[in-house]
């Protein structure tokens, strides 16, 4: 996993609540055995006018010229609800997103983002509202500083928190499987004490 330190990028506002993983990446694009090739299908049903994805929907916020190249997604509450498909963060990441800001995330999606190195930042509802008010009127650029847990935008500055180990893993690009495999003796000792039925 790539290390995450600081990131400055353009914000695209997607002011819709309960955006589920079926909307982020519809099921017909899950039939791959590789981790690549999902970005082009991100938000397919909203982003394209046709089934084949050849005609962009000009009204969908991500397609607007002023938001091209955005790398920070400002999202509505309960973002990423629904299925456990990690294809959703893969698609967001491949499109170019590094950070997602929302007032709340669905649990599985949040964990999946951390595991692939896409930074989900939870801010308060008031803070998210402030950003939604700013975003449509200006090309809003934010700086996310992970080591200091801050999001800054001009004079505005917000703080966020992550679980200690998740923060460490993102900052250091930890191979989580390798990290746990180093504790194999502890796992084996646990197994030795398990009841027969288990």
């Amino acid at each position, binding site marked *: 996993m790539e290390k995450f330190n600081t990131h400055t990028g353009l914000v695209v506002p997607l002011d819709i*609540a*309960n955006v589920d993983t079926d909307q982020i990446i519809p099921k*017909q694009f899950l039939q791959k055995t590789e981790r690549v090739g999902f970005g082009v299908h991100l938000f397919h049903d909203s982003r394209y006018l046709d089934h084949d994805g050849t005609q962009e929907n000009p009204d969908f916020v991500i397609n607007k010229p002023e938001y091209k190249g955005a790398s920070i997604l400002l999202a509505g509450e309960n973002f990423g609800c629904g299925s456990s498909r990690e294809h959703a963060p893969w698609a967001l990441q491949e499109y170019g997103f590094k950070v997602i800001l929302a007032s709340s995330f669905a*649990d599985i999606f949040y*964990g999946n983002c951390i595991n692939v190195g896409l930074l989900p930042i939870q801010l308060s509802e008031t803070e998210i509202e402030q950003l939604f008010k700013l975003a449509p009127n200006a090309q809003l650029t934010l700086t996310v500083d992970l080591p200091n847990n801050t999001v800054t935008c001009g004079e505005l500055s917000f703080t966020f928190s992550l679980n200690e180990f998740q923060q460490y893993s993102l900052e250091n690009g930890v191979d989580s499987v390798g990290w746990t495999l180093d504790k194999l003796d502890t796992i084996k000792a*646990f197994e030795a004490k398990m009841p*027969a039925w288990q």
Partner: protein
Amino acid sequence: MTISTPQTMYEKLWQTHLVEAAKGETPLLYVDRHLIHEVTSPQAFANLRFHNRPVRHPERTIATMDHNISTRSIKIDAAGEGAANQLRALGINCKDFGIELFDMGHKNQGIAHVIGPELGLTLPGTIIVCGDSHTATHGAFGALAFGIGTSEVEHVFATQTLRQNKAKTMKIEVKGHVGAGISAKDIILAIIGKTGSAGATGHVVEYCGEAIEALSMEERMTVCNMSIEFGAKAGLIAPDQTTFDYVEGKEYAPKGDVFEQAVADWKKLKSDTDATFDAVLTLDAKDIKAQVTWGTNPGQVISVDGIVPSPEDFSDPVEKESCVNALKYMNLTAGTKMTDIHVNKVFIGSCTNSRIEDLRAAAGVVQKYEGQQVVETIDAIIVPGSYRVKEQAESEGLDKIFTDAGFEWRLPGCSMCLGMNDDVLEEGDRCASTSNRNFEGRQGRGSRTHLVSPEMAAAAAITGHFVDLNA
């Protein structure tokens, strides 16, 4: 003498599976059972190969083909080349890593969350994971069961553990008894209607109360299955004699003395009397009526004797806007009686409602209409959850009841719940579906889903619209 703090069932499951809680690290939990399928596993296997790592406990891992298989043919390429490619990859991966696979046409094949319980792979007091959000189903046994992403699938493959933050706890008590004709699906939809679609985010929910205790194991699975639909990490029901009787004798379940010891341990799992929960919700079972969703998330649900709500009915601005968007997508007008909504597709199946009791309930409704046929303009399909369910249903003649009435009797699989195979709705189709998600585009781009019980779906197929069967 030490006085121990009263614990919830979740806390007991957590404690008995805690491998390590090292300073500065997310706690490490042991995983007893890992269910896998073709869609969320291939990239995890690829990473194992890349790092030259084995699957640590192939015997704790079970694979099935369910998500994108055809329900018309057992041929591996019957649902298209993309699906076939994933299915073949699962076959190769299971062979290379020594994992038991129930592949096309195998007698144990079926939806992961249907076969786990019916084979005795699902046991109380265990942690069960699967790369699928409806893994919460297994919580019906008092197992801590939850969906995981592909990176976590890889972590479980390599280590048989997972790192998990401790969730908050929520108790949902359903007091008293439900009225005649009210199903487990109605109970869980009514709960989600109360909490909203994100009401339990960050929580593990424990369902309890007389109405829950009175449920059969299959009904409990329906309730726990939809825990994710209001954001819960997992859903739990305390194991009791109903649970032990169900598990005993199942193919993969412990036998003899080991089973007796297991039951003794499982009896200790229920939450202590004085245990405290972070949140509590109480419902009166007698107030629960048959439910139908009207919107585009499972929280947008109402009793079948109700009307389609108006944005004005919601004070929360987010809910108000969600209502506006949902009515537009669903092409519904506020004030319309739910029983006046007509459908052109009916789907009875999915890990929520495809077990033998579901099929019996649907067949029972069909029989009540005494010889009446599925409305000519409606396509109605019945997709059993597994080959065992299919075989049982056929031995009881249920398939005949369905096909005589004009339903299609299909082969097991996830099918139209998510439409990864060719069971997809067309744009503008309106479906009475016994599945778990009514998201925009879930069953096909531009299609409209109403979540209902098997009884309601069967009645909609015969009458063309939703029906208050208890009126």
